[in-house]
């Protein structure tokens, strides 16, 4: 079950966002589903409603744009059918070395992974703080723990989200507002195809299932865990990253990128 009543989930049409939306629906939490593609959102809303008997709204918005962000922010702050959980999940990846890539795609990536997350988190923090309750779940990544040559802006954006989320967790401590960052490793979703990534060389044990990630994330927010790293193998790697001097960590990611076929 959940202590919340209505979750606004960005990037809800697929992957981890979709899995988190369904996890909340399963717990009887109503939904506000945000993404660009209306048809996919409607199908998900129908599924959530039919399977779990929850109310699910559809909000079509492109969070790379000013207008799209405003739509989501207004819904977050609205008093009618109030939202008490924000799931900042929408994100994209660009897999290319910085010197080789189209600047505009990089900026689009940052507009979504960084600017939109900051704006929605600010709005949710203000709204939930004033009401004295709520939850903010920010979807970061294990790439927040170490720099990733070949996916430099993606990892930097996720480091941003983790840092922001941890700070906000401390700022809102004791106010009734929970803040968690979830940092999944490789999760079977569409993000790799969209970034044009071949994942065939990534070893099986490193893979996570979107449902398991969603379950861990939703539980983590209930407990107000500041950082949730799903999967014991990734937890171990996170621990190892702390004990590795930065120069070695950079080389290791570089080598791992080559082994797994990532990094351009």
């Amino acid at each position, binding site marked *: 079950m959940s202590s919340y009543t209505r979750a606004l989930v960005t990037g809800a049409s697929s992957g981890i966002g979709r899995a988190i939306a369904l996890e909340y629906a399963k717990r009887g939490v109503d939904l506000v589903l945000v993404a660009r593609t209306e048809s996919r959102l409607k199908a998900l809303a129908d599924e959530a409603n039919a399977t779990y008997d929850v109310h699910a709204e559809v909000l079509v918005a492109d969070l790379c744009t000013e207008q799209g962000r405003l739509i989501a922010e207004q819904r977050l702050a609205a008093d009618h059918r109030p939202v008490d959980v924000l799931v900042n999940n929408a994100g994209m990846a660009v897999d290319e070395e910085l010197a080789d890539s189209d600047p505009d795609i990089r900026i689009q990536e940052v507009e979504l992974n960084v600017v939109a997350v900051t704006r929605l988190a600010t709005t949710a923090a203000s709204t939930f703080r004033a009401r004295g309750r709520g939850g903010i779940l920010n979807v970061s990544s294990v790439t927040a723990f170490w720099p990733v040559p070949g996916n430099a802006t993606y990892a930097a954006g996720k480091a941003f989200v983790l840092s922001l989320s941890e*700070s906000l967790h401390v700022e809102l401590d004791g106010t009734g507002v929970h803040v968690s960052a979830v940092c999944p490793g490789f999760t079977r979703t569409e993000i790799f195809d969209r970034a044009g990534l071949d994942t065939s060389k990534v070893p099986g044990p490193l893979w996570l299932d979107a449902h398991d990630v969603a379950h861990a994330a939703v539980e983590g927010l209930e407990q107000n865990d500041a950082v949730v790293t799903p999967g014991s193998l990734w937890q171990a790697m996170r621990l190892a990253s702390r004990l590795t001097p930065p120069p070695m960590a950079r080389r290791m990611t570089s080598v791992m990128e080559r082994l797994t076929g990532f990094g351009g």
Partner: protein
Amino acid sequence: MKLERAVVTGASAGIGRAIAEELARRGVALVLVARDAVRLEELAAGLTREHGVQVEVLAADLTSDEGRALVEDRVAALPTVDCLVNNAGMGTYGPMAGSSVSAEQQQVELNVVALLRLTQVAAQTFNVRRHGAILNVSSLAGFQPNPGHATYGATKAFVTSLSEALHEELRDVGVHVTALCPGYTRTEFHDRADWDATGLPDMAWASAVDVARAGVDGLLANRALVVPGGPNRVLAGLSQVLPSAVTRRMAGAVTKLGGR
């Protein structure tokens, strides 16, 4: 590595100004970028007089698309530019709850979006020439969470991660990339952010001159990360090895000590 001409953003004051002076002292010609043309002209005249280097001035607001385009063009078009110092940055103080969405966004626009655009242009240009250097001014704040200035700390975590990755991407082509991560430095920064840090002990403070020298030395030696000052290096090391629950508490305590 011998540098010919550096573009320095946020050059009119603080660490940016000190880095410009440090480079001029080493005979590097400059393009100084900031919003305030008057302050830049004064600085340029002084640097030319003192060090005999050629100094241009470019008045641009990097929070705007037009301002960024001006500087991007200068980095890419001038064949002698072989160094970019991404220093311009701002910080706000205060909890995120109740703060204005546009103020938070402006900070991200300057500290992240403008820095990324210029870094990308420099990476592409220098990569083709197989020569060049990029110095990104980050902060110790990038190593651990920063309650009270959450967005600022997050922007610096971005800059450090980006720079480290780029350092690795360009290491074999002769392009240097360094993230400079100073702790508390005596500049106008804290006044502008309305951030009263007078509760911090003297030992915690560095001078902008020392920070600039460490940054330029680190860039020439192609060190990925430069943390100036012994106590700061200890803090940075602790942030890495301690569990994040401990660093969050520490960061909260320091914020109370250094804040209002």
